[in-house]
């Protein structure tokens, strides 16, 4: 047991950079702030990506006396988070040019702090670390949602997300208190050891509370109430960021917490996750059918995706890590691309978010219309895009473990979802619109293009992601056993 501070370099770098940005914010004149801050944040994130790639060991290593454990799974997930941050910065630069705020500096360094929270959450190996990092991430996102000038909608969304998110956090804290009370420790391995010998009603209650706290955070069905309002009301780059980062962080943290702890009585909790997952998958798909606002539609679709990931959790431990990571990888890029293209098209007065604003997009800007085909078809899971392979591996995992009916339900949900993913395309290609040029901002366009290309190329060569998932699975299992 030792401090092993060098393992913590990427996080330390990000934290120091964020704090330095607070100081730099004071001396930069406000006119050039947006460009400069976007540039600096972009640079910081690129350096952090390199550092994270260097400091993610294949054989699991611990730091801070076992409070933090890094393996390949956490390394890759952290890279996913940082890559999302990179593309969010690109989309944000463009958005901030069009929608003014007095808090440009605050916007960028709060983004950095939110990513730092997500990174810590992914590698946490102790309950208090997990709780604090979860809150660092969530509180940063509450702030981000409310930062824009005269944006009543964003502030209302922030309040709703704040209240429901805090209830989730409090539920989680209470569950942790119960687990601590039963086991006498907050370190994952010791909690797991103590729980495997003693399964009482109190342990059941504690695990149930922790699980519901996590369901709150990922927006699965009984606790999904905040998701549509929060995604709809938040500024689009922030919806993008929280859609991708919160899901990745919460699901990887769930894997890392629940696999060691629940391995002895996996069967029963697998069933619970499966039921919640299937209900969310169906509910999200059905509720998205009637939406007129694209952001709200994507929010319901994210509930549906969260449901699919949850049902993937219920397969055998090994298959679960593999298929969950693969799905998260695909989901991150799909979310970035989808919210990115909405952000591109949004102009003053939030025009461009509604389905009717997509009328005649093809005649206005053919390239954007073609990109939107790629994005929405990837979300629906049409081959050969990456979204298809993600769904495919989840289905294979479900069938392999003998859960044929759940696999069928997931397929029905994705068939239903095809219905609403086709709607914006119908508007873009078949309906006539007013003839006016769309001038997309360069940086946001680059972000959408990059993530769409990832969806196409990795869809053609899914072995790359598949190998990465396999390696992370191997590394993760090495740490658990």
């Amino acid at each position, binding site marked *: 047991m030792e401090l092993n501070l060098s393992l913590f370099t990427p996080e330390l770098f990000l934290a120091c950079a964020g704090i330095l940005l607070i100081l730099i914010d004071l001396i930069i004149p406000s006119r050039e702030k947006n460009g400069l801050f976007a540039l600096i944040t972009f640079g910081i994130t690129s350096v952090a990506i390199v550092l994270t790639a260097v400091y993610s060991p294949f054989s699991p290593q611990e730091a801070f006396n076992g409070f933090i454990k890094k393996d390949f799974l956490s390394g890759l997930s952290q890279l996913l988070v940082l890559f999302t941050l990179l593309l969010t910065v690109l989309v944000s630069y463009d958005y901030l040019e069009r929608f003014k705020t007095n808090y440009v500096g605050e916007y960028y360094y709060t983004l950095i702090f939110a990513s730092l929270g997500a990174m810590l959450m992914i590698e946490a190996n102790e309950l*208090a670390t997990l709780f604090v990092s979860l809150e660092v991430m969530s509180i940063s996102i509450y702030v981000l949602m409310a930062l824009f000038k005269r944006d009543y909608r964003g502030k209302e969304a922030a309040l709703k997300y704040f209240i429901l998110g805090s209830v989730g956090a409090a539920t989680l804290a209470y569950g942790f208190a119960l687990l601590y009370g039963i086991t006498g420790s907050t370190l994952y391995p010791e909690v797991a050891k103590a729980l495997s010998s003693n399964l009482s009603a109190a342990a059941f209650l504690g695990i149930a509370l922790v699980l519901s706290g996590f369901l709150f955070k990922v927006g699965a069905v009984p606790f999904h109430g905040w998701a549509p309002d929060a995604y709809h009301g938040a500024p689009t780059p922030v919806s993008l960021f929280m859609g991708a980062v919160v899901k990745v962080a919460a699901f990887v943290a769930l894997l890392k917490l629940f696999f060691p702890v629940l391995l002895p009585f996996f069967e029963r909790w697998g069933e619970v996750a499966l039921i919640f997952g299937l209900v969310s998958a169906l509910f999200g798909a059905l509720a998205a059918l009637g939406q007129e606002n694209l952001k709200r539609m994507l929010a319901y679709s994210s509930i549906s995706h969260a449901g699919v990931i949850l049902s993937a959790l219920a397969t055998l431990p090994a298959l679960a890590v593999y298929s969950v990571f693969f799905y998260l990888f695909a989901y991150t890029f799909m979310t970035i691309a989808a919210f990115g293209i909405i952000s591109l098209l949004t102009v003053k007065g939030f025009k461009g978010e509604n389905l009717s604003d997509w009328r005649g997009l093809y005649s206005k800007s053919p390239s954007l219309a073609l990109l939107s085909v790629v994005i929405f078809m990837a979300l629906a899971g049409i081959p050969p895009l990456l979204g298809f392979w993600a769904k495919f591996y989840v289905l294979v995992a479900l069938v392999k473990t003998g859960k044929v009916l759940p696999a069928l339900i997931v397929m029905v949900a994705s068939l239903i979802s095809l219905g609403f993913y086709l709607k914006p395309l119908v508007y873009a290609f078949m309906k006539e619109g007013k003839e006016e040029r769309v001038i997309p901002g360069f940086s946001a366009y680059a972000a959408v293009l990059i993530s769409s290309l990832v969806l196409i190329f990795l869809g053609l060569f899914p072995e790359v992601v598949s190998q990465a998932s396999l390696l992370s699975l191997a590394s993760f299992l090495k740490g658990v056993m």
Partner: protein
Amino acid sequence: MSITGYVILSALLFSVGLFGLIVRRNVISLFFSLELLLNSANVLFVGFSKLYGNYYGELFVFFVLAVAAAEAAVGLAIVVALYRLKGSVNTEDYSSLRW
């Protein structure tokens, strides 16, 4: 006080907090209820920490306190911003986002 006392006290506090969240319509009262929820976990941590004689629980309490303070600051800031735009702290008046 025995450990049962701590458990009962924290369960009571948690229920009161949850009840307040469901019943109240004033945002400030909702904040009170949130603080109760978080602090009920603290009571439990302190009680168990005393039972086990290690400090994991008491450490956790400090983190929860810090997080609760940060949450209250951010939440109140959001409410102030909303009050300036809307002139109300009643949750029923915040209803521009719906199906």
